[in-house]
């Protein structure tokens, strides 16, 4: 039987190559899944990966890819810092919702006043909403040693309930004919987050994403904090010996990832979504986890991975519409991507050897 053998040094080829291989494996396994559902696998894969870019309506779909990729990249950048340090914020979805609620609420509070100050205040409030929500698992971990994975994840469901509550309650549009959901912020110029260039899908969230990618890059390669983050993830004891305060690092990483998730929520609610509604969140906070890992937790990788996942989001929607694929199959498809990526990662540290004569006696 072939055996896995630890490599003396991690393979650079596999570290770089696994994302590409994982995408190919996902196409194959996903195609099989779609075939089992009775669809033409080749057409389904083409619809997801090709049509959004090059079909007849590509001009529209391409802008939609940017709309989806923006928040994914923004959230994934924040998550990647924590993931590198071994701090597992799985609840970005909740922080995204709370950022949208707090930021949106600030905008709604000013309605209908005009002024340049409204939008910046909303941005601050959006980031703050995410930070505050992320501080709950962070402080619980520091104070009581709770597991931040569980706490941050469970807080997503709390945030969803709060979102439902405010959509039906205090933030409901008074002129909304009783429908749930807030006023439409995109129709309130002081609070709106429109496309910066009409029809591109590139709004202030995109600007923030680009900025954060560059900042994260600089942070990881040049800044003391970035070094401490990398060190803590790779060798926690060495980090402690080197003088890193682990509690402070938890606060910083959870804070940054919460802030960026909150910002993504704010840009979404003021832009593409337009309003707070019970079904405002569509899972960017979870998909961003895939983006972070697919991008190898590297800022540039995250940009590529964010664009790819944005593509599958748009392509998946087209496939749902045109081929009648169930929405859950698209989520399963994205999940496969993470599955294959993590599975193939074994080959970064291990290599396969034909077992041959090596038999161990009992």
């Amino acid at each position, binding site marked *: 039987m072939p055996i896995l053998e630890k490599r003396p*040094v991690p393979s650079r080829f596999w570290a770089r190559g696994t994302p590409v291989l994982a995408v190919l494996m996902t196409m194959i396994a996903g195609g099989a899944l779609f075939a089992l559902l009775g669809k033409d696998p080749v057409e389904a894969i083409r619809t997801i990966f090709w049509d959004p870019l090059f079909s007849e309506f590509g001009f529209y779909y391409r802008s939609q890819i940017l709309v989806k990729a923006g928040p994914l990249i923004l959230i994934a950048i924040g998550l990647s810092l924590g993931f590198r340090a071994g701090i597992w914020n799985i609840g970005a979805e909740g922080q995204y919702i709370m950022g949208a609620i707090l930021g949106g609420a600030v905008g709604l509070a000013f309605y209908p006043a005009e002024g340049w100050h409204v939008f910046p205040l909303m941005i601050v409030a959006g980031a703050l909403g995410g930070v505050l929500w992320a501080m709950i698992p962070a402080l619980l971990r520091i104070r009581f040693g709770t597991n931040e994975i569980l706490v941050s994840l469970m807080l997503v469901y709390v945030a969803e309930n709060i979102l439902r509550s405010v959509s039906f309650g205090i933030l409901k549009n008074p002129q909304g004919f009783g429908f749930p959901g807030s006023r439409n912020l995109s129709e309130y110029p002081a609070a709106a987050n429109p496309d910066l260039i009409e029809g591109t899908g590139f709004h202030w969230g995109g600007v923030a994403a680009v900025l954060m990618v560059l900042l994260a890059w600089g942070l990881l390669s040049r800044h003391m904090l970035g070094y401490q983050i990398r060190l803590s993830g790779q*060798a926690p004891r060495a980090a402690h010996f080197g003088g890193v305060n682990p509690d402070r690092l938890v606060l910083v990483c959870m804070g940054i990832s919460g802030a960026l998730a909150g910002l993504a929520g704010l840009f979404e609610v003021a832009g593409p979504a337009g309003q707070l509604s019970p079904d405002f969140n569509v899972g960017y906070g979870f998909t961003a986890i895939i983006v972070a890992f697919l991008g190898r937790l590297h800022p540039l990788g995250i940009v590529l991975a964010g664009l790819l996942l944005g593509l599958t989001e748009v392509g998946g929607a087209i496939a749902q519409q045109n081929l009648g694929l169930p929405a859950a199959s698209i989520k399963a498809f994205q999940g496969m991507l993470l599955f294959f990526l993590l599975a193939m990662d074994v080959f970064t540290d291990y290599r396969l050897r034909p077992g041959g004569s090596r038999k161990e*006696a009992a």
Partner: protein
Amino acid sequence: MKGMVTMQGQVTEAPLLAVEELSKAYPGVVANDGVFFSIARGEVHALLGENGAGKSTLVKMIYGLVHPDGGRMLLDGVPYAPQSPSDARRAGVAMVFQHFSLFEALNVAENIALGMEDPPPRGALSQRIREVSAAYGLPLDPERIVGELSAGERQRVEIVRCLLQDPKLLIMDEPTSVLTPQEVEILFTTLRKLRHEGTAILYISHKLDEIIELCDSATILRHGKVVATCNPREHSARELAEMMVGEILIPPRRARRTFGEVVLEVGGLSLPAATQFGTALHDIRLVLRAGEVLGIGGVAGNGQDELLAALSGERTTAPGTIRLGGREIGALGPAARRALGLLAAPEERLGHAAAPDMSLTENAFLTGAVRERLVRHGLIDWSRSRDFACRIIEGFDVRTPGPEVPARALSGGNLQKFVIGREVMQHPEVLVVNQPTWGVDAAAAGAIRQAILDLAGAGAAVIVISQDLDELMEISDSFAALNEGHLSTPRPAEGLSVEEIGLMLGGVHGGTTAGGTGEGAHADP
């Protein structure tokens, strides 16, 4: 019994075990390359070599744990190719490992029964254990729980387990590394008795004085090959070391020096155990003057890691428990202590002293950030960090292609030179090192000891925590022993006898009887 008489020089009759042209390769390394040696009945044969010379692979092949790629073995003149340790045991080959495989929650008799091919009933086994342990001077109570035993007593359990099977050949891998000098004496008495009865003993150790004292012949391995076969009694320890290393060794030298002012004072330092398996520190007191080297001996697991953590700042205590140059630093973290001049090098190189997957440059930055001024406004100056790494590499003869190589690609000795060099190059006021030469080859160990002495000669105070008593005697000005978290009062190293050191180390583990923790000595039914 034939072969009773120990033989020096020529062996005319068939040896008990003959190893011929044995080879074994692992991916990327040839562990054994045409190894040959033979051992007669009643012979104590030493296997000598540096770490990685292939000793472990060789004995694992003899014990059936690893299967050779080529060559053959003859036991009593008959081809011998054990497929597993139980094959080996049936053929009369027994082995005592360096790391014990005992269940702490079970008692001695249960542990011994677990390791036997066909254990007799409990009552008879306990009786046999008493007989054998008494006959060989290894007092052992079969009813005691192994978790309560000292390292020396645990080793007796392993030895008695082997002896119960009447082995023809007993393999011992680094048996004295965890023993106090008194326990070593008891072990040697036992081994001599076994030799007298005709048991052959294959003895692996890097303690050359022991080998000269105990062994009749020696096979020396270097890089997987036999480089010499000799009678160790005809050579000095230095000559043997040079055969192992293949180069001339220069002993560390220290210049006469006087001690300066008191730089480090530790008083009333107590620390609860960090984990279930940790050791608590109790009221540690010591005073260190500039230029002084304090050696702290003790068997592993007696609080060495905890003491280092308390001194490095990884674990903090009340401010007044540690004073550096009169300043209270007990509550400061590692970075703040480093800034004040207290530097440390922990025992575990990979994962604690250095991050395995980070480059040497990044690892140089790990502790050098503050004192070497490698950070400005939060931004890291990588070119200065690289320069610092290069200076360490050059100054301490670290064999590496360059500073961008990850730490885990370096051999143990080279990485240790890097880790020690990194602290020494920062000109500490006080340096604390734990096991500076553990698992390091002789040449590198010599260089590290010399660097420590040079540092002290330049006026720094140094604490060396080590299990290697020879090392401590070689470089220490004063000596203290750590036992179950208690530190004995430091005494001048000069003039300390081996017996005195053993008593300091032993603490309550007297080592002569089964009175390990004071309980159980009266457990006789």
